[in-house]
């Protein structure tokens, strides 16, 4: 079995040794396909990385403003309430969605074994998309917001993005329709689901919630709490039917591709896909537990959220069994390391999400920073890490150049991974304390810990303590408590918010390294020496080839 460098000595460096001599034509075919995708995919990636840098700057600013409220406060366009939605919309519609589109188009062409038709049109779509994100951001900064979380962009900016997205959807569907490969791979199911679901979701919610602005106020067909139900149907499904399926499609492709072995079980992936399609859509209303909406709505969503454990377990088992015996490769391949980190966080965030739909857990954690931790574990530690992995895999195949510096990739990986893990941990702990104090706690955790030390203070915080005179248990969690003053609760969060800002700096540093790597690769600056193989964390191509060449010849190679 030839190694990566042998199979591709004339062509692009490949991380996977799946190309066998009997498939020499395949390498040529791949080059034709990659060449057809080159411009649109690189355009989407380049745009997404610029929005990522801008979005994370705004995120860091919003984070700093939470503990330095006076920071830049006199500039109305930089007030917290504008910077925060700019952060969310930039990373969701600028970074996340555009990186997903680039990855999705390339995956669809490769898996369908067909080139992209008229690649100039998706490039135009990318330009239009950028205009939409830019005007939406400017509108938010000058103070024109819809006030609906995840959909703050004014309706016309949303329409611009929708048109650009629609074109990409049609192009992806056409590519699928012209497929030369008879087998439809699991990644393609997820992509087909996503490109059908998301436009429907985005269009209906925008029409139902915003419709046409009249006299500066939006006149929506539905008002009141029904809007909240639709809002969270959208907010949850933007992750559920767009980011998550694209992320999973990418993992399902890249894991077997880098390792050079097939996915563990085809039947598990079918089960996973259909249970995913059935249950995820229903989960949104658990964002309104105990709120002013009918209880049945919350209950069906909680049931659907718990049922999500089925698709999540199948995906987790499938990915783990594919990786089994190959964890050593993580020391070499940047793509695999990012994708595996993302895949593990998918399992983690999904199980956490299912549990958060339980009333007993949701009540204290809702309205706290715990939810923010969960959101970043999903959209960042899972989805964004997988997209990073995809960019590391796809771009060298489009530009014909390998990544310039393993050290910068290292900075990128550890900055973002440690950053997001730190953010998750500090906001989860801080959020739990905040939620308990807002709801059931009878005393302040920080004050108890100052008095009694960490262990005894926490024990008293949760379970109370025995009164030395009466012998009764006092303190601890109680129903209808609300005993800790609000300002005390708020002061308790500040330490955790400061730590969150530190984690934001780590992530931003990773993004800057990533941006430099991408810019160097795109322009070819400083990359005169052509590498013999892919950029690896450990410069030991031989050992890397040995690690992944022990695999059995596949029954079915991924295109």
């Amino acid at each position: 079995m030839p190694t990566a460098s042998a199979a591709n000595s004339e062509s692009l460096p490949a991380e996977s040794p799946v190309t066998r001599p009997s498939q020499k034509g395949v390498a040529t075919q791949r080059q034709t396909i990659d060449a057809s995708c080159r411009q649109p995919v690189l355009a989407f990636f380049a745009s997404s990385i610029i929005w990522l840098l801008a979005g994370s700057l705004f995120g860091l600013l919003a984070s700093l403003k939470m503990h330095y409220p006076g920071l830049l406060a006199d500039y109305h366009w930089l007030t917290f309430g504008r910077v925060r939605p700019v952060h969310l919309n930039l990373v969701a519609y600028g970074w996340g969605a555009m990186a997903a589109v680039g990855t999705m188009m390339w995956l669809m062409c490769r898996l369908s074994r067909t080139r992209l038709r008229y690649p100039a049109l998706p490039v135009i779509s990318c330009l239009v998309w950028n205009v939409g994100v830019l005007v939406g951001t400017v509108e938010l900064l000058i103070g024109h917001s819809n006030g609906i979380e995840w959909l703050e962009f004014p309706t016309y900016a949303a329409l611009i993005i929708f048109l650009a997205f629609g074109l990409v959807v049609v192009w992806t569907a056409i590519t699928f329709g012209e497929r030369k490969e008879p087998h439809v791979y699991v990644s393609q199911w997820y992509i087909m689901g996503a490109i059908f679901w998301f436009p429907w979701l985005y269009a209906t919610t925008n029409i139902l919630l915003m419709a046409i602005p009249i006299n500066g106020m939006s006149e929506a067909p539905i008002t009141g709490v029904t809007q909240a139900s639709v809002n969270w149907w959208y907010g949850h499904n933007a992750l559920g039917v767009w980011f998550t399926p694209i992320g999973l499609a990418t993992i399902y492709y890249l894991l077997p591709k880098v390792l050079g072995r097939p996915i563990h079980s085809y039947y598990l992936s079918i089960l996973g896909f259909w249970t995913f399609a059935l249950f995820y859509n229903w989960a949104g209303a658990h964002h309104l537990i105990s709120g002013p909406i009918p209880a049945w709505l919350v209950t069906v969503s909680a049931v659907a959220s718990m049922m999500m454990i089925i698709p999540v377990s199948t995906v987790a088992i499938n990915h783990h069994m594919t990786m089994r015996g190959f964890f050593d490769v993580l020391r070499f391949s940047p793509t695999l390391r990012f994708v595996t980190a993302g895949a593990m966080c998918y399992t983690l965030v999904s199980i956490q999400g299912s549990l958060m739909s339980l009333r007993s857990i949701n009540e204290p954690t809702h309205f706290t920073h715990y939810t923010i931790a969960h959101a970043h574990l999903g959209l960042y530690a899972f989805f964004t890490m997988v997209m990073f992995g995809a960019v590391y895999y796809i771009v060298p195949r489009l530009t014909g150049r390998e990544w310039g510096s393993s050290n910068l990739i290292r900075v990128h990986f550890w900055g973002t991974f440690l950053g997001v893990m730190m953010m998750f941990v500090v906001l989860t702990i801080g959020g739990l304390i905040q939620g308990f104090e807002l709801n059931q706690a009878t005393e302040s955790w920080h004050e108890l810990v100052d008095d009694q030390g960490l262990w005894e203070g926490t024990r008293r915080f949760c379970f109370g303590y025995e009164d030395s005179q009466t012998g009764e248990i006092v303190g601890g969690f109680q129903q209808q408590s609300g005993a800790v003053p609000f300002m005390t609760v708020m002061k308790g969060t500040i330490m955790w918010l400061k730590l969150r800002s530190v984690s934001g700096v780590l992530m931003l540093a990773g993004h800057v390294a990533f941006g430099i790597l991408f810019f160097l690769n795109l322009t070819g600056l400083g990359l005169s020496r052509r590498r013999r193989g892919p950029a690896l964390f450990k410069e030991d191509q031989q050992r890397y080839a040995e690690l992944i060449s022990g695999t059995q010849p596949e029954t079915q190679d991924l295109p």
Partner: protein
Amino acid sequence: MNHGTLIFVGVFLTFSSAWLGLVFFPYQQLGSITPQVDEVTGAVNPAPYSGVELVGRKVYIDEGCHYCHSQQVRGGYWNADLKRGWGPRRTVPLDYVNDNPALLGTMRTGPDLINIGARQPSDEWHYLHLYNPQITSEASIMPPYSFLFERRPIQGDPSPDALPLKGKWAPEPGFEIVPNDRGRALVAYLKSLDRTFDVQK
């Protein structure tokens, strides 16, 4: 699974079911609620917003107040919102019939505001608090909204609505701080937030 049609029909059906459940049925159930009219006093609850209150509501949205302040009194097992004095009862769909969009909120960096008009009826408190929250709550992490105010030289007598700022907050002599139109509208909206009426069965 090699049939594009099968995938298409499947994803269509699964998504339609959720659309029916989470969009259509709630709309059927809640879309027809109208404000309740008190049979004795003839008062309409919740009262429709006045023009200036609606402008203030837009300021509330544009400045993103709802990212830190919820507008709902929750019930539920732990049920602490009532004990915090955020309202006499949990909020119900009726409370939001005039709201577009409903600003239920997802975060409580600051306290709930659905009854702030009843809890804090003082204009002066609201203006001082918006000008710099640390004037009224020393440790507050709410940002100051000085851009909702105007600093201008005093001509003749001081304006009646000039903020009574003292000490380090006071402007230099000869100047006064008065709310601008957006600031006034926002305070009018905040004072209109009052859902303390009794819900009739």
